[in-house]
């Protein structure tokens, strides 16, 4: 009892000595740190917008959304963005055609079928795949996948959109797999038990109960992966070349929006020229693309959330 009284008085002393100022100051500091990323984002967007406006003072919207892209033409440069959009959209579509089936089945396996031991081996390996620098993937696409594909498709050009599309798909498999697996893991076990109790096989439980219950998270993982593919730069810059012709032939070289920005920031556009400002217009459009994708992802995960 004596001891208890001692502790009590010690605590009372300490509380009375404690300075309140730090308790009040710290939250403000935390808020400041949290604001840094928001302020940076606002700064970037402002830069993009102001310089994009300068671009549109020189080039009309009609020309911007046309198929004529010849920014290096000394006499009459044109800045039609459609070839870049096709390049971006096609390469992303190819990537998704690789990443969605592989990523989703991998997620189903990891979440529902793999034993704890297998999962512990496979997940880190997949995460390594996600950690490979994209320049390595680009090199891999150009020097390994393209020659391989040429065996199958003789008409394939050395720079083409198919090969980097596939490699981008491989790159985002871990993202799709990991996010979809999280979504499926979050489905309460009680739901699986209910289905097992009715005589479902493991496959039926996975496809008819777990998958529908996790669909919002799975869809969100797809959309986030698409936005990753749209913004991906190095792989396409290396392996799909810089052809500025409008085409839908995936065996041919195409330039993506990101590839265009790489090409022009590496020296060809002098500051203040229309070509220089075109980078901001393309960058802004790219930003809008990924922003819309992320908003769609958020919308989907809210709308299709199955309440349980």
């Amino acid at each position, binding site marked *: 009892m004596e001891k208890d009284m001692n502790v009590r008085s010690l605590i009372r002393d300490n509380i009375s000595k404690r300075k309140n100022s730090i308790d009040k100051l710290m939250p403000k500091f935390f808020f400041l740190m949290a604001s840094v990323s928001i302020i940076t984002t606002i700064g970037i967007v402002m830069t993009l917008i102001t310089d994009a406006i300068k671009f549109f003072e020189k080039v009309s919207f009609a020309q911007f959304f046309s198929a004529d892209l010849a920014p290096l033409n000394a006499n009459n440069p044109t800045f039609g963005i459609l070839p870049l959009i096709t390049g971006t959209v096609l390469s992303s579509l190819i990537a998704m055609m690789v990443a969605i089936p592989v990523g989703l089945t991998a997620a189903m396996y990891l979440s529902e079928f793999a*034993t*704890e031991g297998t999962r512990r081996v496979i997940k880190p390996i997949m995460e390594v795949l996600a950690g490979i620098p994209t320049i390595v993937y680009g090199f891999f696409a150009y020097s390994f996948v393209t020659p391989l594909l040429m065996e199958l498709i003789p008409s394939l050009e050395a720079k083409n959109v198919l090969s980097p599309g596939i490699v981008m798909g491989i790159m985002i498999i871990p993202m799709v797999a990991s996010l979809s697996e999280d979504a499926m893991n979050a489905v*309460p076990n*009680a*739901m699986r*038990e*209910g*289905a*097992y*109790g*009715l*005589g*479902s*096989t493991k496959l*039926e439980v996975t496809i*008819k*109960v777990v998958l*529908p*219950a996790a669909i919002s998270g799975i869809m969100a993982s797809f959309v986030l992966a698409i936005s990753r593919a749209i913004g991906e730069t190095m792989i396409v810059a290396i392996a799909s070349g810089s052809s500025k012709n409008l085409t839908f032939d995936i065996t041919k070289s195409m330039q993506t929006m990101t590839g265009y920005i790489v090409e022009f920031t590496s020296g060809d556009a002098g500051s203040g020229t229309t070509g220089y400002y075109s980078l901001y217009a393309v960058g802004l459009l790219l930003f809008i693309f990924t922003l819309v994708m992320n908003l769609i992802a958020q919308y989907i995960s809210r709308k299709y959330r*199955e*309440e*349980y």
Partner: protein
Amino acid sequence: MTNYENKVVYDVRDLNLWYGNDQALKNINLKINKNEVTAIIGPSGCGKSTFIKTLNRMIENIPSVRTTGQILYHGLNIFDKSIKVEELRTRVGMVFQKPNPFPKSIYENVLYGPKIHGIKDKNVLQEVLETSLKSAALWDEVKDRLHDNAYGLSGGQQQRLCIARCLAVQPDVILMDEPTSALDPIATAKIEELIDSLKSDYSISIVTHSMQQAGRISDKTAFFLMGDLIEFDQTEVIFSNPRDKRTEDYITGRFG
């Protein structure tokens, strides 16, 4: 005596069960009769949930589980290789502690079982839907909103939906693992009433924490303690004149 044997749905013989190295069930012997309600009582951790989950082999979803002994279901050992666990579970339905409807419509919940087992005929499905919901005393409450999400129902309604879902595959045994522990007294009373009405068509085995509930609804009661089956008898006998001191101590509230 043969007549008596025909009445037996489950004949559990020398059942032992381990989680890894921990023995959870020790040498259990008991018989569950047709059209009776068998209550399983005992303090937390006594093995009563483990036992009931062994009856439809749900316990095998836990990787480290190992069993010895036999459970004869209509004379067939459910651990036999020739037994398909999926088929066993359609004959032996289960209702869980917390209502666990699927995040689908009421309609889809009830018809999940028939559909995965290949029933496609619309008329049959409609019939099953209606009879199952009626048997579960839920039809009148949901008939106008069959396509609404099941999670819009109250907890008690959800649990009756789970019972309907289980009835839809026409089992002959229903295992209930503390089906009312997450429900309020009114919803509990409804489920108890339902159990009583289902008794004529099904054999029911119910795990419960509430001795009053066991007393109200069951014909036989099994008392488990630390993985042992201490006493198994007519419910009146267990509650009025138990043979074992430990049973008496438990039902009079001296421990547990």
